[in-house]
């Protein structure tokens, strides 16, 4: 039953991915103008003169003048063979550009997810069990501040304080000597020493909302008759709470994994921008601004795939944890 559900779920993602890729490509080609307009605008900004006839010749060479569907199938055909096309801005194959950045993005996203859980889960449980205690009020207050502060603002304040009062540099993910160094244990250590700052910045608001969700859900469960029954049977309070109400209340955590993935990556663009993180966000933003079609397309497509995969993962996990799910 469970396996059939998983298989059906996986099969469904394939047409879904195609639909998503079509939409992604349509979105990228939607704005007026194309990469060459943007290129001309860049040249214009520094005072160069751009000849329209030459741009048209380039347009023809890059195939921008062809119909949308022709361009799309040309693109997706390449993608299926692992060729993401060329980045016009960098004159480099897109494949060369994205992988390392995507890897760092995923690392950051996973670290943030773990941080969020590690903090939100115990606090949520504590807040529910010790409702209206001083500790509950404290975490509620902190949580609301975390929820209300935009991440990028938090990042700016933290950077300012770090630079002006402590003389420290909190931007980036690596120290200078490791920036272009090959991967090594020392470089991973350096990454670990830097990554906690964006993790905290990105994690705060998600943590705050998860604390509230956990608290509310758990409160719903805590006074159910089965809890009273279990308590009457002499189960210790800790085991009791962990084994039954928490297991039910944790449901939203699992179901949000799906959107945690793309949200962490795309939602972190501005923060990554402020903190100069070498993740996918800033490169994607730049590609979108420059209408660097294939580069932006690759990012959008990967983000979409990540969310689809994320949804798949959370659906499967949910089905495992909560048997009611698999029967529709």
């Amino acid at each position: 039953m469970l396996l059939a559900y998983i298989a059906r779920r996986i099969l469904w993602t394939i047409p879904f991915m195609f639909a998503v890729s079509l939409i992604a490509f349509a979105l990228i080609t939607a704005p007026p103008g194309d990469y060459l307009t943007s290129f001309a605008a860049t040249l214009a900004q520094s005072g160069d003169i751009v000849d329209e006839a030459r741009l048209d010749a380039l347009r023809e060479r890059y195939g921008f003048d062809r119909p949308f569907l022709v361009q799309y199938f040309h693109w997706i055909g390449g993608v299926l063979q692992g060729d993401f096309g060329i980045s016009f801005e960098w004159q480099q194959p897109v494949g060369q550009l994205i992988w390392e950045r995507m890897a760092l993005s995923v690392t950051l996203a996973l670290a943030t997810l773990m941080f969020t859980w590690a903090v939100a889960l115990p606090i949520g449980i504590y807040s529910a069990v010790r409702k209206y205690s001083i500790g509950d009020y404290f975490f509620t207050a902190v949580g609301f501040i975390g929820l209300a502060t935009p991440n990028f603002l938090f990042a700016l304040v933290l950077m300012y304080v770090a630079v002006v009062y402590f003389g420290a540099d909190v931007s980036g993910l690596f120290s200078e000597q490791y920036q272009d160094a090959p991967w090594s244990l020392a470089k991973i250590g350096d990454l670990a020493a830097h990554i906690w700052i964006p993790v905290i910045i990105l994690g705060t608001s998600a943590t705050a909302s998860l604390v509230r969700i956990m608290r509310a859900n758990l409160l719903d469960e805590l006074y159910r008759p089965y809890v009273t029954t279990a308590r009457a049977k002499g189960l210790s309070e800790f085991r009791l709470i962990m084994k039954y109400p928490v297991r039910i209340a944790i449901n939203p955590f699992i179901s949000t994994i799906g959107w945690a993935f793309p949200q962490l990556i795309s939602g972190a663009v501005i923060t990554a921008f402020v903190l100069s993180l070498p993740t996918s966000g800033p490169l994607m933003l730049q590609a979108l601004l420059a209408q660097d079609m294939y580069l932006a397309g690759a990012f959008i497509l990967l983000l979409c795939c990540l969310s689809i995969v994320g949804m798949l993962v959370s659906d499967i996990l949910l089905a495992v944890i909560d048997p009611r799910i698999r029967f529709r």
Partner: protein
Amino acid sequence: MIRDIEGVAPRPVRRPTAGLMLGAAILPLLALSAGAQEATGQAPALAEMVEAGSLPPVAERVGDEPEVVEPLNAIGTYGGDLRIGLRGSSDHNHILRVIGPQGLVRWDPEYTEIVPNVAERFEVEDDGRVFTFYLRDGMKWSDGKPFTADDVLFNINDLVLNEEFAPTPPRYTSGGEPLQVEKVDDYTVRFTFKEPYGDFLAELASPLGQHPVLYAKHYCSQFHPSFNDDVQELIEANGATDWQNLFLQKCGDLEIPARWGNPERPTLDPWVVKEPYVGGATRVVMERNPYFWQIDTEGNQLPYIDRIVAPIDQDVESLILAVIGGRIDFGLRHIDPPANRPVLAENREKGDYRFFAAEPPGGSNMVITLNLTHKDPDLRELFNKKDFRVALSVGMDRQEIIDTVMLGEGEPWQHGPFEDHPYYHEQTAKQFLEHDPEKANALLDGLGLEREPDGVRQMPNGEPVRFQVDVIPTFDPVWVDALQQIEQQWAELGVDMEINPMERTFFYERTSNSNDHDAAVWNAKQSWVAGQIPQMLVPVHHDSRYGIAWRDWYLSGGENGEEPPESVKERLRLYDKARGLTDPEERRQTMLEIAQIAADEFEVIGVAKAIPTYGIVKNDLMNVPEKMPSSWYYATPSPTLPQTWFWKDG
């Protein structure tokens, strides 16, 4: 603010300048000591390599005719890094500005005369039709291969004039024909134009004028199908789409990031790329060019500084934090808006830096251009009435704008060169500056624009007097703030202006390409000297947003766009004439004639005089001038020769 170095004599009095333009056959002045000075000094690391036999001696590397450069304050010492901050992923021109456009000629530090650079000297003959450049004997590319006239021919004939390749138009055409280049001998090249081309030298000195010496033939020709039959293999091996893409990937172009993306590409620059500027980069590192062709007056090879290190900060705010935190040694680009000055000034001690002034050569920080070739006939008719434009100008309270959004700096100004500049034209700069709402209202009344009950005036067709001003908010943060005030000031006149902020590409597409705008904001920092395009006087440029259809007409030779009125045609004719003139005084007179016509037409509404901005430089960094001109055409700071900068206790 610059600390004096004890015991160093002040810089000798400058040699007499030859005016704004070099006239025919005036020989370059800095070349006199070339060859008289032996290259003897070099960086310790290079000396070790020579010792070990992996590098030829310094005298051999710089060739027989290195350029001898007199450093600003002192002879330097070798060593250290110069950290500059790049912003985002598309800031390649920042590198260009520090490394310099190492063209055949360059501007002197004062931005008043053109001096030889890669060329050892040059001659102008036949009224500016023929330019002969004498290259430096024995000069080398950064990989040690000789640099000769063949490289220049390759650049011009196989790339600049190659229709299949050049994504930018062939500059350097005159009388409808492209320039001709010929090799006189290995170290002499001659450029010939059909018509006189007085501005040629100034164009060569600009950042976009490096084409003749950009590519090393021995390296870059392997990516060119005319020289390599197996180019297809290279295309496939590098994942390129075609040979043009491959070529750009490997050898770059003047103004694309890929120019700094290939450490193997030989250059003539003082520093060459080590950690390249590619999509995934978080910093760029450049190392000294062991074959660099300039030496100081004591025979030491330049540059003094070992490396340029450019960390990439995505955001201006974090760039400023990097400055405050002392992690940037030289900064001007991006950090210089007036709003940042207090925080930069406050943290001078913490960041261990001082300020230098970056002075625009003239003009205005902000001009508003109404679209005089508007597609809507009613708006076009309205905009084309000079009284309407005058009413908008005198209906603007410039002093209030300056006091509130420009921190009190600057003075009311239309556009054009400053008072102390030879090209200064009073009427262009100073007409219609007084704030006089009564006069403005009277002018608008005179145009028959009646006020409706809601206070907004009406055009004869019953539509309200309403238009949008397109603006890029990220380009200059002051623009939108100023527009908000202007919006209110004009609203009092019954003119309903809307601010229309947009992203750069859309702005360009709307205003400069498809002519869909009502009005637009831009800057006009020009002094009209040779090499600068006077786009606010004549519609010849995409920044001439008052007459894009006229510009199309001019650039297409009358095929596209729209035939302009007589006043514009007269100015275009004079501009073509001015570009050919080699006599500085004659050129000045012609430009002032153009300015007079433009001033009478009053097409462009300026706000405030362009004020100097300030960059930062580390206290221990020497030979950096206290002030320098700030202009793209000058490529600040490269004509002040960063290769002569050095660390005091380096």
